[in-house]
């Protein structure tokens, strides 16, 4: 078995809701509520969910941009939140990088491309400008950006090019893990495929691990080895990508897959299969009792509204649903 790069154990993030002059805490937003998963070297884990599911919060926790309420995150066996600031800076930061959704806001508009891409090197090493810029040239070359663009500013590039530049920056220190937060959803259809192929190529070239945050299942299927489906702060299904797409177990996973399938209006059979969920995701301030999905589930029974389901292993997947008790 491949080496586990990162492991999340029962990760929780609750935000206090305060009210009034004295900032009295009147409730908690349960953004992330007990999430566990692991990523292996050279593999991709995708965390899929709708907006408000808590997937970006998890990503930010891994990147230490957000604190943990409880639980732990282990990077190569070491608990991140027990590392000293110096350890974080020397042992963790250089190995984990981040590609954000929006290539228009992820770069300082007042920095030139060579400084944008070179920043991780400037911050973490003591090289001269000249050697850093040579390095930047190589990085840009790897992602298919002409090195003539080095002295230009981010706004002079198109969305697809900017996303390539963002990837170059993430690769600057030869990381082992990249967190890709909706890496293609802000891009045009014809550009998405280019970028997704680039990610695949880089993964096989550098044996990179990816955690992909996404809402589009088709993108996820193409890229990932394992998939975690998130709903209202919790994982509802988690496991091997092939198995999960072949045989989705959780009703929510099935609805998501149905919503992402390409169905032509004339395909009557396709239409019959389509699952359309009613209602919207409830507020994480007051999650429903029992199974969190029961308010929208077409197969819910009495038990679902009363008892909280456990995560169970079924075949190659884990699922949190009473139907598999």
């Amino acid at each position, binding site marked *: 078995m491949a080496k586990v790069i990162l492991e999340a154990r029962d990760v929780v993030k609750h935000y206090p809701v305060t009210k009034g002059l004295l900032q009295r805490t009147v409730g908690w937003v349960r953004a992330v509520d007990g999430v566990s998963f692991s990523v292996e070297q050279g593999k991709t884990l995708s965390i899929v969910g709708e907006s408000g599911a808590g997937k970006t919060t998890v990503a*930010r926790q891994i*990147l*230490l*941009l957000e604190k943990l309420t409880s639980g732990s995150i282990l990077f190569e066996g070491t608990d991140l939140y027990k590392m000293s600031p110096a350890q974080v*800076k020397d042992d963790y*930061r*250089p190995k*984990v*990088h*981040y590609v*954000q959704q*929006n290539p228009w*806001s*992820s*770069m*300082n*508009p*007042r*920095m030139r491309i060579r400084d944008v891409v070179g*920043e*991780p090197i400037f*911050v*973490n090493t003591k090289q001269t400008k000249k050697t850093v810029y040579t390095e930047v040239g190589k990085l840009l070359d790897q992602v298919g950006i002409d090195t003539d663009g080095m002295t230009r*500013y981010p*706004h*002079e590039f198109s969305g697809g090019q900017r996303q390539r530049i963002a990837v170059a*920056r993430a690769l600057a220190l030869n990381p082992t893990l990249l967190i890709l937060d909706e890496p293609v959803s802000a891009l045009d259809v014809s550009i998405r495929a280019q970028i997704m192929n680039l990610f695949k190529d880089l993964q096989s070239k550098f044996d990179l691990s990816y955690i992909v945050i996404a809402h589009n299942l088709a993108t996820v299927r193409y890229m990932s080895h394992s998939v975690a489906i998130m709903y209202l702060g919790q994982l509802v299904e988690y496991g091997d990508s092939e198995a999960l797409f072949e045989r989705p177990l959780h009703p929510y996973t099935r609805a998501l897959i149905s919503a992402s399938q390409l169905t032509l209006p004339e395909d009557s059979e396709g239409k019959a299969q389509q699952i359309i969920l009613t209602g919207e995701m409830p507020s994480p301030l007051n999650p429903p009792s029992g199974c969190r999905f029961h308010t929208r589930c077409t197969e819910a029974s009495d038990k679902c509204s009363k008892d909280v389901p456990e995560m169970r292993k079924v075949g190659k997947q884990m699922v949190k649903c009473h139907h598999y008790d």
Partner: protein
Amino acid sequence: MLNTITTTAKTKKKKQYRGISRATRVMRNLALWIPTVVMAFMIVLAIFSPWIAPHDPTVGKITDRYLPPAFMEGGKTDYLLGTDQLGRDILSRLIYGARISLSVSLLAIAITASIGTVLGIIAGYGGGRTDAIVMRVVDVALSFPGLLLAMLLAVAIGPGFWTVVFALSLLGWAGYARMIRGEAMRLSQSDFVAQARVNGASGWRIMTRHIFPNIINSLIVLMTLQVGMMILAEAALSYLGIGISVPTPSWGSMVSDGRANLDNAWWISAFPGAAIGLVVLSGNFLGDWIRDKLDPRLRQL
């Protein structure tokens, strides 16, 4: 028929467009050159006032009191812009006044902007307790009666040039701090700052390389707007007798000198008032232009 309609529409629209574009271009150039010339002129006046001014600004001739400007009936060519209630030459006072008014306001702006920016960025980026402490001090500074503070200062260290600069600085920094803190807070939430943190950048680097350069725009706009306010504030202090000592002219004190005689000798207030207006306007135009130049996104346009 439809064809002809569309073609005439085409030519008409194109002409309209070209006209607008030329007008815009001319306006843009004027917006740069007029304020630059005005500002340069004022600065030259300020530096070389002893050589330029035709009369001594502090000594008047009692016999030449309330003389109107030369171009009006009863005016003397000796006093191009007329004289004030003590018979002093307004033109000369205006030229010398540029010295005091410009240096007081520019100095005060430099000091307030520096203090306000540093504190604002620290509060906005630091957040939490740092933010709370800085902002409470700002609240106190903003709620303190400014004139009272200035008077206390004058009593403590005596009136004069530095007292004015000091008093204006004490009053002005909080406004900057509050605005810059808001901007810094917004930028701290931005994607590229998150990215910098992931890259391992230190707080110092984030504040100086990522937040500060993106604040310059608003800072410059605020600074240029303050030129006028500072000149006027200096006038108020001078009027209360805690500013620049009496015979030395400053534009603000000249405006207040003429207030009692607005109906029969309007020129005493009007010319320094116009000078203030001109400087303020030029400052705003220049500020806009600099802001556009500093922004790489607008530089190409």
